[in-house]
């Protein structure tokens, strides 16, 4: 009987220490979300301005046939940038991204395109190397706190491969979009070639002003587009970092909740076991005393 009691005590102790760890992880993640969100906010003005500038150039320059905007004829290969996290403990975060990437791969295949994965984040890299998939590029070590330099490095490789005759013909990005603390969605976006939308300008729309270019429209576009791609990748990395922490916070919260539930159940079982032990001891004593009393009565 004592054995069961001891066993339960030991389990409660171990679950309690696990709960302490997951609770700490949850708190760490919560404070990191705020920081990641602040970084996202700080990057917003640049992204907004650069998008405006690109819109300005593309809608002003009458003939936009920069290699980065024109879709190649007969595309054969597509680069897919998959943004995952470096560390685990974040629930379905990476699984969701990788599932969406697989779906995109199937979609591209049905269009006759080979998908070449470019992966950031240790989890995604491990996933791909375990399946012996060749990666066009891999980057690890910055999923929690991406710097602009990281995005630049990725963009350079992608653009280089995009410009190459035998390289990739399209660039897609699979990442997690941070909607709110509770909602994060996996999104698939095509970043290259840029989609030049011919929209009818409604009267309420502000018509972009007619720009003069220094030195020429083509030169401006030449240096503007890579910056635009970098900015898009940087935004994706930042959103993914915030989403990762949000996913981790949620995963750790449910782990802590589950641990507390286990502790409650175990404590109840332990109390029952202890009570059973006491009851048995009493009945043994009473039984023993009765037996002694009976024996004494028999002698007399």
């Amino acid at each position, binding site marked *: 009987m004592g054995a069961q009691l001891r066993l339960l005590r030991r389990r409660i102790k171990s679950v309690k220490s696990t709960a302490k760890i997951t609770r700490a992880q949850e708190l760490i993640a919560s404070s990191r979300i705020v920081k990641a969100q602040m*970084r996202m906010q*700080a*990057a917003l*003005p*640049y992204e907004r*301005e*650069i998008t*405006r*500038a690109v819109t*300005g*150039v593309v809608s002003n320059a009458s003939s936009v046939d920069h290699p980065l905007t024109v879709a190649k004829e007969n595309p054969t290969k597509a680069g897919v940038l998959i943004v995952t996290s470096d560390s685990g403990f974040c629930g379905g975060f990476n699984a969701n991204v990788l599932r969406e990437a697989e779906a995109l791969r199937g979609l591209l295949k049905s269009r006759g395109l080979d998908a070449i994965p470019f992966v950031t984040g240790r989890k995604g890299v491990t996933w791909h190397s375990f399946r012996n998939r060749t990666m066009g590029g891999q980057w690890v070590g910055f999923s929690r706190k991406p*710097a*602009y330099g990281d*995005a630049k490095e990725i963009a350079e490789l992608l653009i280089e491969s995009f410009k190459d005759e035998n390289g990739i013909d399209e660039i897609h990005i699979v990442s997690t979009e941070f909607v709110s603390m509770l909602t994060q969605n996996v999104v698939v976006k095509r970043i290259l070639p840029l989609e030049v939308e011919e929209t009818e300008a409604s009267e309420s729309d502000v018509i*972009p*002003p*007619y*720009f*003069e*270019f*220094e*030195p020429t429209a083509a*030169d*401006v576009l030449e*240096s*503007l587009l890579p*910056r635009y791609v*970098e*900015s898009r990748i*940087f935004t994706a990395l930042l959103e993914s970092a915030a989403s990762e922490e949000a996913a981790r916070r949620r995963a750790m919260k449910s782990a802590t909740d589950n641990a507390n539930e286990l502790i409650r159940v175990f404590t109840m079982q332990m109390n029952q076991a202890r009570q059973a032990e006491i009851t048995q001891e009493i009945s043994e004593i009473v039984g023993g005393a009765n037996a002694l009393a009976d024996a004494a009565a028999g002698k007399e």
Partner: protein
Amino acid sequence: MAKLRVGVVSPEREIWSGEADMVIAKTVDGEIGIMPQHAPVLGVLVEGGVLRVKREGKGDLVAAVHGGFISVADDEVSVLAEVAELGSEVDVAAARDALERAQASIEADQEDADAAIEAKRAKARLRAAGEEV
């Protein structure tokens, strides 16, 4: 007189925003001065340039701007810099140090393009801080 609304942004943060009377930047074609009512312009900035924002009643705002763009439309000036630093934020000693190191590697290897850019950046940072180079 109308004022310019100026924003200096880098990918990682907004460096400065506010009103100004004149903005002087260095594009690959040469220096460009923007005053209110300027025609819309989109220019490519040089590596290691100095941006000067003239404000009435206050001192000039000077920043070292490395690469990027300037876009002007409707009295709104946005400077998109890959890397930018306000003159007041520049660590002069560190910039001098960087300049010396870059110049040393240029002397060792004339073809060193990275060092040349590094030297330009350091010079721009020093100029932005008001130091003589």
